């Protein structure tokens, strides 16, 4: 190998090292950005949660228990441990009823789905459900929820 050859080889190696360093830094920056981004609020406009209340961002956000989607209000723990033993929290969060209505659902589960007597937990659970999952009066037909519509510019097909 000539001297000239060694120099070009060294140069090549040097540029490669620079490239590797640059890519690693870039990757690192992207990773840091992704981690930070994930702790930023999900909805635009909501107050910023800092890295300090990391614990909270994991479990409860805006009064909602994130892993289950249930309201974290009074009676949440009991409801979670009793109801979610058998079914999804979505069965609760997508329904609305009065105390009487929720009681009927519990009776139905006891009669047909093998739910045992809930003892003194029943009152707490019904109170919780009737408070946080109460019916919303919507008339004979709800309006289209315009706040939920994602407006977009339609590109005509033809």
């Amino acid at each position, binding site marked *: 190998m000539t001297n000239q050859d060694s120099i070009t080889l060294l140069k090549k190696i040097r540029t490669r090292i620079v490239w590797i360093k640059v890519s690693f830094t870039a990757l690192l920056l992207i990773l840091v950005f992704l981690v930070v981004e994930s702790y930023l609020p999900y909805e635009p406009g909501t107050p910023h949660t800092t890295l300090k209340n990391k614990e909270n961002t994991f479990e409860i956000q805006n009064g909602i228990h994130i892993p289950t989607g249930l309201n974290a209000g009074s009676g949440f723990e009991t409801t979670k441990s009793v109801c979610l033993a058998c079914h999804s929290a979505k069965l609760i969060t997508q329904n609305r009823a009065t105390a009487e209505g929720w009681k009927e659902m519990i009776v139905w589960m006891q009669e047909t*789905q093998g739910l045992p007597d809930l003892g003194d937990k029943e009152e707490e659970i019904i109170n919780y459900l009737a408070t946080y999952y109460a019916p919303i009066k919507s008339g004979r037909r709800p309006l289209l929820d315009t706040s939920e519509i994602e407006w*977009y510019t339609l590109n005509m097909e033809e």
Partner: protein
Amino acid sequence: MKNKSSRRQFILKACLLHLVYFLDMPWLKRMKAEKYFPGWKKFQNNVIPGKSSDLIVLNDRPLNAETPPHLLDGDLTPNELFFVRNNGIPPTTIDKENWIVEISGESVIESKKYTLIELQQKFPKVTLPITLECGGNGRSEFNPPAKGNQWKVGAVGCAAWTGIRLRDLLEDVGIKQDAVYLGYYGKDQHLSGDPNKNSISRGVPIEKAMENESLLAWSMNGKDLPLMNGYPLRLVFGGYPASASGKWVHKIVIRNRIHDGAKMEGQSYRVPCNPVAPGSKVAEEDMCIIEKMPVKSLITYPKSGATILLKQKLPVRGYAWTAARNIQKVEYSIDFGQTWILAKLFPAENRYAWQKFSTRISFPKKGYYEIWARATDSDGLSQPMLLPGWNPKGYLNNACHRIAIKVVNG
């Protein structure tokens, strides 16, 4: 050389492994990853087997998911977009080669068993496009609210089902004169895990089972049924609540009385025999089985929320279906029902397949509009703009579908 290539392989594998872990990070799932990596959702573990991540999951145990209406924009709904309505836990081990269906019950002359392969070889094969709709589709709009999965509009789809006519099968088995009802049993497990309980065991009157379009099907749009839609064998009854079309079917019973399986009795898939005021309590003996799905339509193009220019003519299309013979007309309104204009309606290949409609709309001035669609069937029935009769379980909502449009100057 060998050493070098195995080292490269090792590095490649290590990179892939890191990529997999990276995609599986919980913190990544919580951020709007779709914003940065379009299509990444497909890599997630929590998608439904065989189903698109675009489905809206209403409940994950049991699994229930509906299709956004703008994704129903086709004569046939793709397998991965077809809605999922489970009452129990789908079977996990399925041996298609040795799948057996037993036909028994009080009203068969003699019980018989067929393997799936025998069914496929012995009887004439038919392929029919048929619409299936959940009886509770549209439940979310009822007031007072009805309990159960809060379906919006997308618990419906139309697929080309391949299988055999039940009529051919039942003629081969031999049915007694006193036959009244067909009931099914599926391999899905009760939510509680109790093997002695059925999650659902419904069916149809024997006359319905003998109809030309009543199928025992193993294929959907030319492919195996998706697991969530009853792989390897299911019933297909158009015009009935889809719960009558049993999935993972391994036993069919011909009864000399109305079938009394799970979710046939009580309040399930029943409506008050006589109309009731909203919020009424209805005794079980006053509830009647739903035997007909109402006339209905969906606007599948454009997706709600389109903004267009005043000078543009908006193409609009969708599908209409009914339990009656066919759809007679589809109209649309952009002024909340003050005027209705006919859309172009296309015929279907057979009964129970949904029918396409299309039109082009010019808007008089800029502003916010809603396009409402209204279908009328051959029985002369059409869709109400308000909700139809309230019922305790929130079935049969066939109120007009509507989408929002914004027209701007230009």
